[in-house]
């Protein structure tokens, strides 16, 4: 499952926000810190990667999350 689909599923959105690639936590009401954790953990399950405990709190924008996923998938 790709990140856009995971995002919509976790945030319970019918459509992806237009500026998805530039979104950060708090930009839409659905994306708060609790939803962010569920988003990150859903990414882990679906993409079979794992974030360390000390980086999770900094993964708060689509851009940063995508970059980190790319690093972990190398």
């Amino acid at each position: 499952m790709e990140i856009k689909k995971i995002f919509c599923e976790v945030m319970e959105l019918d459509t992806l926000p237009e500026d998805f690639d530039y979104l950060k936590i708090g930009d839409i009401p659905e994306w708060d810190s609790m939803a962010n954790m569920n988003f990150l953990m859903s990414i882990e399950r679906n993409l079979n990667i794992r974030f360390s405990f000390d980086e999770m709190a900094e993964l708060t924008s689509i851009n940063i999350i995508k970059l980190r996923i790319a690093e972990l998938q190398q």
Partner: protein
Amino acid sequence: MKFDHIGIVVESIDRSRAMFERDFPGFSSSKIYIDKEIDVKIQFIEYHNSNKIELIEPLSASSPIRSVLEKKNSSNIHHLAYSCRDIEEACNTYRDKGYGFLTKFYCAEAFKGARVIFLLSPLNFIVELIEDND
């Protein structure tokens, strides 16, 4: 690992403490602490059996705790706190068990500068770990 306290988010520490004094008396109050990391004011009320409740008052609209008060029809009980000796090992263990990490470590004045960190459990409740340096 030892249970330490339950954290409750409140609009006003003074009004909330007064309510506890009226409805659930028999405790002593700590001094008031300011936690700049999450922009809140904190006071502990502690019963004779050492059970502690942490009253947490957000100091601004930008405090990450403020949103708890804005959710209507939901509980303001915010977290369960445990103290542990090797907090880094505990964090790795909880990560293995599927916990998410809402914050990084920071030093909390309310715990004599000990490191604390907030986790989200797989059951969707928040846990605070406090490093036990004693």
